[in-house]
């Protein structure tokens, strides 16, 4: 019963987001009370659908390399070869997370200029940390008895990694990706202050023209995307957990 209700809720939210993106004008009456007199209630300087798509594309373009690199690094430092770097990499991750996303974004502008690039770089750098941290936690947090059993049954280092450590660490790794993804979706809205295309544009336009209808549609749309992706990955993690 609960699972069914959950399914309906998920499909409902997805349907709502799609309906809003494909036919925003249908929602005009809902948003009109929040727009100032005579101002448009639905963002009209670009299509919400295309902004959403580019928002998602920026996030994906930043997160996919972040996953690959942080996973590679986590595997490296959890092997005997890279073990020397383990404490240092922990410290760097710890310190790195104290860098505010806005600061990373702003500091990237002088280096690469305005547009999509600084946003991509900030999202990439900021996405690395949670994924790395969780992958490391998953790979090093293996129960000693399991690690011992894998060694004792004669697996080589690679076999242990592929057949035991990675599958067992998978749910924790996916959790890291979930966190990174939500942060990235939110941070990407700030990217619009440096002229990246995305839903932040709608929010900032709303802030500049005191049009709360814009702020709401940009904000809630981003939030809904975050919830859908977070929840979806959560389902994936649960599947991975059951199998592991």
């Amino acid at each position, binding site marked *: 019963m609960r699972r069914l209700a959950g399914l309906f809720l998920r499909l409902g939210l997805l349907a709502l987001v799609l309906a809003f993106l494909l036919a925003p004008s249908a929602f005009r009456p809902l948003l009109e009370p929040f727009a100032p007199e005579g101002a448009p209630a639905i963002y009209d300087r670009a299509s919400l659908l295309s902004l959403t798509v580019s928002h998602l594309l920026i996030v994906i373009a930043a997160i996919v390399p972040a996953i690959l690199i942080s996973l590679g690094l986590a595997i490296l430092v959890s092997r005997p070869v890279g073990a020397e770097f383990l404490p240092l990499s922990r410290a760097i991750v710890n310190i790195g997370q104290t*860098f*505010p996303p*806005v600061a990373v974004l*702003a500091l990237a502008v*002088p280096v690469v200029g305005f547009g999509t690039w600084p946003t991509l770089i900030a999202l990439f750098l900021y996405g690395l940390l949670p994924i790395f941290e969780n992958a490391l936690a998953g790979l090093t947090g293996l129960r000693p008895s399991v690690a011992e059993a894998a060694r004792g049954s004669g697996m080589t280092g690679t076999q242990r990694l592929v057949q035991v450590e990675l599958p067992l660490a998978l749910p924790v790794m996916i959790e890291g990706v979930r966190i990174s993804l939500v942060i990235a979706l939110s941070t990407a809205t700030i990217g619009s*202050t440096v002229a990246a295309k995305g839903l*932040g544009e709608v*929010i900032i336009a709303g802030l500049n023209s005191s049009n709360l209808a814009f702020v709401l549609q940009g904000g*809630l749309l981003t939030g809904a995307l975050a919830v859908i992706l977070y929840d979806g990955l959560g389902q994936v993690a649960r599947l991975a957990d059951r199998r592991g």
Partner: protein
Amino acid sequence: MRLRPDKLGVPMGALLAVSLALPMASLRANRIAAAEPQGLFAALPSAWAAGLLALAALAVAVALFARDPRLRLALPVAMLLALFVAIGEAGRTLAAEAGDYARVAPGAGFWIGAFALSILFTDAIIRLDLSPLGRLGVLAASSLALALILMTGQWDALSILAEYRGRAAAFWREGGHHLQLAFGSLAAALVAGVPLGILIHRVRWLREPVLNGLSLMQTIPSIALFGILIVPLGWAAANVPGAAELGVKGIGMAPAFVALFIYSLLPMVANTTAGLTAVPEGVREAAAGMGLTRRQQLISVELPLALPVVLTGVRIVLVQNIGLATIAALIGGGGFGTFVFQGLGQTATDLILLGALPTVALAFVSAVFLDAVIDLLPAAAR
């Protein structure tokens, strides 16, 4: 004995060597002119440049081959200090040649060199395996060194300080706002979040809905939440008697404060509950069995044992708030973000740095400080 180079020393030593070949500083004829890169020998008097090179060679050698962690700490520290003093010297040298309107900023060589040295520095500290108090000491010494460099005017010729001099009053005012926002919302989150965490720990069926609700708030992008809050607070200022006198306004610090508070609640509440849940069942049972009242169980057993996890929540919240407070500037809430967004608007790198660097430093110091405090708690409670 065969010398085996240090695994970290190889990439960092190489990076340090490369950094010396890159432009040490950049010179612009005025605030908005294009930057001209200046190499080590162009930026510094040759005695300085040669000295820096010699020190760098020594630092690379130590990074590659030294085993003693004290030596591995001493050289990056010396080199970092030398680099910091030298960049000020470069500012003076270049500015003297190029005239009053010229702007000198650290170049790629400086930043990359400082990065490599910071990594070596961090690595040495880890190898030294310092106690929490030792780490606090290093933090204090580093802050003191930075303060001395700033106060003696060594960096006065650098463009970021030129930006600062132009708006010193605003800098400290916005800094104050930033701290008020970050620490004020943390205090509010502590006052509200810890009791709420205790409540949902005890009333089990509340746990899931409360945590899910708070997580949902986290998905709303910060700039949107700041914006959305303008409306209810504007309404409150206009309609709730006394609200306006308390400083509640639709724009400005009030919505920023409330937004930071909302984001802070999840880590505070979740960590309080997690800390309480982690108290071993046997301890809980013993406390009840010894005849402690519910209140005594909470105050003298459960909360002290949950303290490290609660403090970890405080650390998360503080670092997050210091970062997010920059966004307050977008809705007129002030803070260091004011300079970041002004700088982005004017394409003025120095102004961006004037806002971003203190923010990063503040978050960094808070994190290191709280980490040490958490480690200082009696081992038994961890």
